[in-house]
């Protein structure tokens, strides 16, 4: 199986504070890879590093293209969609405008066709189409963020804690939809989650991070079975 994304010796820092200390990891083509770990392990920073939001050292390859050091806008245009921590909703704009922005880099006609697909995944967004996005509930904003990212027709989808702050039922709903998306869209996914149980169920592969280092890598099944890892790093 080929890798869509590959990071070699990836380091990142916020000012003087080093957060990632040389990560090697890969996201397989068409698969779901999870990044697990406690608060402050560097999961979010890893996603931000891939998108060029933080300064990095080391190599990041998307397919055959080196994307480290590129501007965020250019990385996005190469097909990397990022559902950021906190969902990144354009609060002042309508749901429709949020979706239009998702398809900003693509020809308008194509995008409008994709809107139908998004409403199929997320019927609630259709109900709220003309509403100001800031008035949506947390779960709806998460759906909006995922739809916005998918409208880019990405090769790689980066998901930062889609379960964050949501009621368990809503989390289940979102992961049910994500499973459908994974099947339909052929998009590769890198998932960051605190909720390790749900992430391991969804992903085929996983990396466990601790304070900016990878402490374990393997198939989700193996990591889920490893009692020690589960207790020390995943907390369940």
């Amino acid at each position, binding site marked *: 199986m080929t890798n869509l994304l590959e990071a070699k010796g990836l380091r990142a820092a916020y000012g003087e504070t080093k957060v990632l200390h040389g990560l090697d990891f890969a996201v397989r083509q068409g698969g779901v890879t999870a990044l697990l770990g406690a608060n402050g392990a560097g999961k979010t920073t890893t996603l931000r590093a891939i998108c060029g*939001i933080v300064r990095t050292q080391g190599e990041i390859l998307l397919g055959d293209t080196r994307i480290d050091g590129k501007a*965020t806008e250019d990385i996005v245009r190469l097909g990397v969609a990022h559902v950021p921590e906190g969902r*990144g909703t354009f609060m002042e704009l309508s749901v429709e405008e949020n979706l*239009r*922005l998702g398809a900003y*880099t693509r020809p308008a006609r194509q995008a409008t066709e994709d809107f139908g697909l998004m409403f199929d995944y997320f019927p609630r967004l259709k109900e709220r189409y003309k509403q100001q996005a*800031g008035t949506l509930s947390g779960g709806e904003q998460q759906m909006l963020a995922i739809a916005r990212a998918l409208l880019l027709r990405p090769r790689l989808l980066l998901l930062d804690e889609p379960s964050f702050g949501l009621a368990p039922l809503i989390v289940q709903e979102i992961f049910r939809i994500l499973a459908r998306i994974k099947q339909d869209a052929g998009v590769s996914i890198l998932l960051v989650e605190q909720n390790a149980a749900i992430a391991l169920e969804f992903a085929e592969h996983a990396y466990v991070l601790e304070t900016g280092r990878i402490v374990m890598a393997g198939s989700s099944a193996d990591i889920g079975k490893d009692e020690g890892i589960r207790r020390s790093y995943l907390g369940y």
Partner: protein
Amino acid sequence: MLAGVLHQIMSGLATGGIYASVALALVMIYQATHHVNFAQGEMATFSTYIALTFINLGFPYWVALAGAVVISFVIGVTIERVLMRPLANAPVLASVGVFIGLLLIINSMSGFFFDYTIKQFPSPFPDHPMLGGYLSGHELGSTAVTLIVLISVYLFFRHTRLGLAMRAAAFNASSSRLVGVRVGWMLALGWGLAAGIGAIAGCMVAPVVFLDPNMMSGILLYAFAGALLGGIDSPLGAVLGGFAVGVIENLGGAYLVGTELKLTLALIIIVAVLIIKPSGLLGRRVYSRV
């Protein structure tokens, strides 16, 4: 009496349109950067000189105006790229310093290139009263031009992809980058548009107040009052505020304080808004649920 009041209101709306345009230019830059561009007025004055130069070279009025708008747009974009861009993460005072510096520099450049004498500026509109004598031809024409500008700007922001991207970049730069919007260029475009709008406002007001390097300094104050009154982060509010200030200024000048204290009215409005309702009448009301 009633006819007099009506007349004052109408001509107040005509000047209010100019304030509305400049207020809109201020708001566009404010929304994106949270700074008030104090140099907006001087930029508009400089643009008006450019238009006058074209007219003196023998170009038809509207061609000269279009030329001035295009050149002003380029100047606006350049100022953002060259001067403001390096200060994107600098403290507020650094930007304020640049704005004040720009104000002084552009003012002096106007004087240096085009000298300090007061010049006449032509109006493309007929020179006789219209609408039963309530408005001069120029007042009516310039109001129409202002409305066309404001409506075009509205349609641009509301219904074009680029307009949406510019709004998005102003509201949420990091999310905008994540959908592929080139945020830096959106800011530069905003500066360009603001400069272009200023150019039109300058050319519309110059036939009334005559052209000299300080032409816009008072107008900028009224525009700022209008922007604050309507809400400095609301384009619609700024436009309505601009019109309102024009009417208040005219009525106040005619019946209340006399022409000498008209500018004081603008300051009173600014202070009153800041004390009573700092967000302005249509200031941002963002609903957010957590």
